[in-house]
């Protein structure tokens, strides 16, 4: 249940570390709450320092603090119901940054993601994740 002002850890290598949710997209009625698999608009609150020397190596766009980006929620603390009746709960809220075309900004994902992403159509993220629960 991520809403306005909710903070999420970023688990890809786009450079951001912590983002704050500003808006939850897509669903007509969500009462302002987003869960796993929902797209959100977020502001980067904390990012890894960008050293100009290492910039040329990777072709991944590094985000800065204060950037407004889109992201998809991949883990949330609020229990999410699976179709077979199970409830899954993670210990933190996490997101993966996206561009306007729903493509990932980073190239790698470092951490567990929820399997509910597959059901919501984020198969690319699920395939990149090291562990899906």
């Amino acid at each position, binding site marked *: 249940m991520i809403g306005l002002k909710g903070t999420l850890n970023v688990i890809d290598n786009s450079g951001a570390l912590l983002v704050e949710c500003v808006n939850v997209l897509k669903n007509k009625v969500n009462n302002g709450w987003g869960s796993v698999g929902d797209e959100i608009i977020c502001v980067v609150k904390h990012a890894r320092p960008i050293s100009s020397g290492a910039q040329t190596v990777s072709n991944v766009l590094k985000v800065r603090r204060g950037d407004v980006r889109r992201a998809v929620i991949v*883990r949330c603390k609020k*229990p999410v119901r699976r179709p077979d*009746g*199970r409830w*899954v*709960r*993670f210990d933190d809220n996490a997101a993966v940054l996206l561009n306007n075309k729903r493509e990932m900004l980073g190239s790698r994902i470092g*951490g567990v993601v929820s399997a509910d992403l597959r059901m919501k159509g984020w198969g690319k993220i699920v395939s990149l994740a090291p562990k899906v*629960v």
Partner: protein
Amino acid sequence: MYFLTLPTKKRIQGMSTAIAAQRVRVKKPSYPCISCCSEPLTIMFARSSFRIALDAWRIVSRQSITTSSRIYPYSRVAIIPSAPPGSPPASLRRGKGLMAYLQQTLPSTEKQKIISTIFSRTHPDRVRPGTVLTVNLTHAPTSFSGVLISVRRRGPDTSFVLRNVVQRTGVEMQFFVNSPHVKEILVVSRAGGLDRKKRKGLKKAKLFYLRDSPEKMTAMSAGVR
């Protein structure tokens, strides 16, 4: 008045309670629920509810045509478990001891065994909070292991929560014992280990404090994948 006589020994499933409740009077003998009748039953419909009578007749006639193929006509994917052996006693028909009867018959026999041994409150082989369990599921991902942090005992609705740390993130999953997707529940290591004295150390029924102390969590789940 329209009279609809339902044939003998037919279970009238799918007759919506809306039909049964509105403007319908059931001729004696009366039954607690319309789907339990196995003797001839006549339903009286008021003149104004011709459409309801027609719908009811349609349901019954459709039932009589396809009884062998479709017990529940409104869904092809619904799982209808077979009726338990033996006819229910007369007191059950009146509604006495209904919940106790359901607790005994709703889960399948294997699941009943699991509920009554592993998740019972007093059985010597019961599983205590702090035990490490592995749950095998019928669909992918096939298994999940974790420390048992809570058991919610509600008869057929019994469920338990397993907590594990996957890639430095804590994950908790709540499984319902009766779910057809739960294939097996295996005990990896008992709470407190083999030492009987240490078993008494864990005195809580719900180990939610593990969420805040990762050291205790690793101590319990040492060596679990």
